[in-house]
């Protein structure tokens, strides 16, 4: 009786909850689309010129707060430049450097891990030693040292960040290779006359690719933080090119006068890193065959 009387309301509640759940599932993809659009076409999205300075309207609060100027939604920095436009333009540097750095790390690390795990023996010991040595250095410190020596250009930054992250890839790949290399289908591949290269880069790599891709996503989030750190320290892409880390650094000198100069780029970094991590989680669930039942 109770059940029947309640039943008409139950589906409604369930439906509403389901719709909310679906929308929240879409949210990160929307955010990702916005981020990618900012990377690709900042000119069209930014409301103002990110380089246009004006000492009259410097350090203004956001437009929705008292003292804000309309049109400068997130306020202006110490040179009177529009913060929102600079954040939009800053996405490009962050995304490009972190994506390319992860690519460099993935290629170097995966190759090293494949070779080490496949051949074992001396090659393996050498690679594992190299991994241990590099992991003993704090990544940021290492990158700072190298960038300080060879100079902070965009390509240098990408290569150095990439090389700083290869050991993790190598370790993950090596472990996965070791678990796959003695399986029967690898032996079967050898028995049809496949060479080492073919077995490593076709048979083994294809089977462990999903874990590498998932790890690459998480690594991407970390690279965004490293990039922001380096920009904050002035070792990243040089001014006047807007970068999120650089903006925080600029604003930190004026924190007493205006909180918004540092706050919004910081918020964006937090959101972007969260977003990429969330995507990594989803990707892992998607690629894990054991979680595919639902």
């Amino acid at each position, binding site marked *: 009786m109770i059940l029947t009387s309640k039943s008409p309301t139950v589906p409604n509640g369930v439906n509403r909850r389901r719709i909310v759940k679906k929308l929240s599932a879409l949210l990160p993809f929307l955010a990702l689309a916005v981020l990618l659009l900012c990377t690709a076409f900042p000119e069209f999205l930014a409301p103002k010129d990110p380089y246009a300075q004006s000492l009259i309207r410097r350090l203004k609060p956001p437009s929705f707060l008292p003292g804000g100027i309309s049109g400068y939604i997130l306020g202006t920095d110490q040179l009177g430049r529009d913060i929102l436009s600079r954040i939009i333009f800053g996405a490009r540097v962050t995304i490009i450097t972190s994506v390319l750095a992860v690519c460099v790390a993935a290629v170097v690390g995966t190759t090293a891990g494949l070779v080490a795990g496949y051949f074992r023996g001396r090659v393996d010991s050498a690679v594992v030693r190299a991994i241990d040595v590099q992991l003993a250095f704090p990544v940021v410190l290492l990158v700072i040292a190298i960038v300080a020596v060879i100079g902070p250009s965009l390509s240098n930054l990408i290569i150095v960040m990439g090389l700083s992250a290869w050991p993790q890839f190598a370790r993950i790949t090596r472990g996965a290779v070791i678990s796959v290399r003695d399986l029967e*289908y690898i*032996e*079967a591949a050898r*028995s*049809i*006359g*496949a*060479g080492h290269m*073919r077995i490593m880069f076709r048979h083994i790599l294809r*089977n462990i690719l999903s874990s590498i891709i998932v790890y690459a996503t998480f690594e991407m989030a970390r690279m965004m933080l490293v990039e922001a750190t380096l920009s904050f320290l002035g070792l990243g892409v040089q001014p006047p090119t807007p970068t999120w880390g650089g903006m925080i650094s600029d604003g930190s000198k004026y924190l007493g006068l205006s909180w918004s100069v540092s706050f919004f780029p910081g918020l964006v970094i937090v959101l972007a890193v969260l977003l990429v991590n969330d995507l990594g989680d989803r990707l892992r669930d998607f690629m894990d065959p054991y979680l595919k039942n639902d």
Partner: protein
Amino acid sequence: MTQKSSPYFSELRADSVSHDVVLSIAGLRTTFRTDAGEVAAVDGVNISLRRGKTLAIVGESGCGKSMLSLSIMQLLPGNGRVSDGRIDFEGKMLVGVPEAEMQAIRGKRIAMIFQEPMTSLNPAFTIGNQIIEAIRAHDKDVTFSVARERAIKALKRVGIPAAERRVDEYPHQLSGGMRQRVMIAMALVCEPEVLIADEPTTALDVTVQAQILELLKSLQNETGMSIILITHDLGVVAEMADDMAVMYAGRIVETGSVSDVFDDPQHPYTLGLLGSTPKISEDAKRLVAIKGSVPPLFRMPTGCRFHPRCDFCIAECKIEGASRMSEISEGHFVACIRAPVEENCRELAE
């Protein structure tokens, strides 16, 4: 019964039948580096495979039969190596051949199928792709579409229905029997002269076993290939093989044609194996098991390795040289000093 003892048995044999021998193995010794020192999994094996015939290698688990086949393919695990002996394949010595040359032989001229069809196919590729790979590994000029056609033809030949559709399926979409057919298609797509089948039916249902054996037999008639069949199933041997070699603890103890060995087994181990097989024709009796178990590799008994488990053992069996091969009848060799057991040991058996 004439008894010709000869320590040079392999050469004798090779001389007499060399014209139709595809693969001959002489004095093969395969050793493994372990913490307990170097142990020999295969120790002085002599066999020869006749063209277009099937040679069965029989023995219980751990007797070295799989290591023998991996030695031929040179796919031994990292700590193993062929430390002595010859493997001659069509006039070519395979031991010590450079890896690149061996790769050209593997799959192209000597192919192999494995025990576990469930795990022998790469789960990340369609079966078509894996067969195409086998084709293109040996002939880079074959275009993808031609190779695909050949793959479909190969699948049809091993009796896979709707091969045009199946070619794009992944291994997990196929049953065990179908996967073993795919493995066979993959092994035979380059028309090898020798096929090594390492327990090809052990992991399959009995009805599927019969189908796979039937398939292998008809493919052999079609292509004229020679088969080395590794098995512990004497029923399969009787069904499939022309010649057989019984292996015990890394050595061949008896070899000859299947009818010779089945009808007139000479080595006590062969007698034991045959005695432990159930027969429908006889009244139900308790099966005779061979007492004891296979000695561990690093603690092999001296002399004949079977002597601790043998009912006919005498003092001479325990000294070196007791496992010398002698020819009991034309082409039927046995490594037992007491052979022919039935004549020499009648009083013991009774």
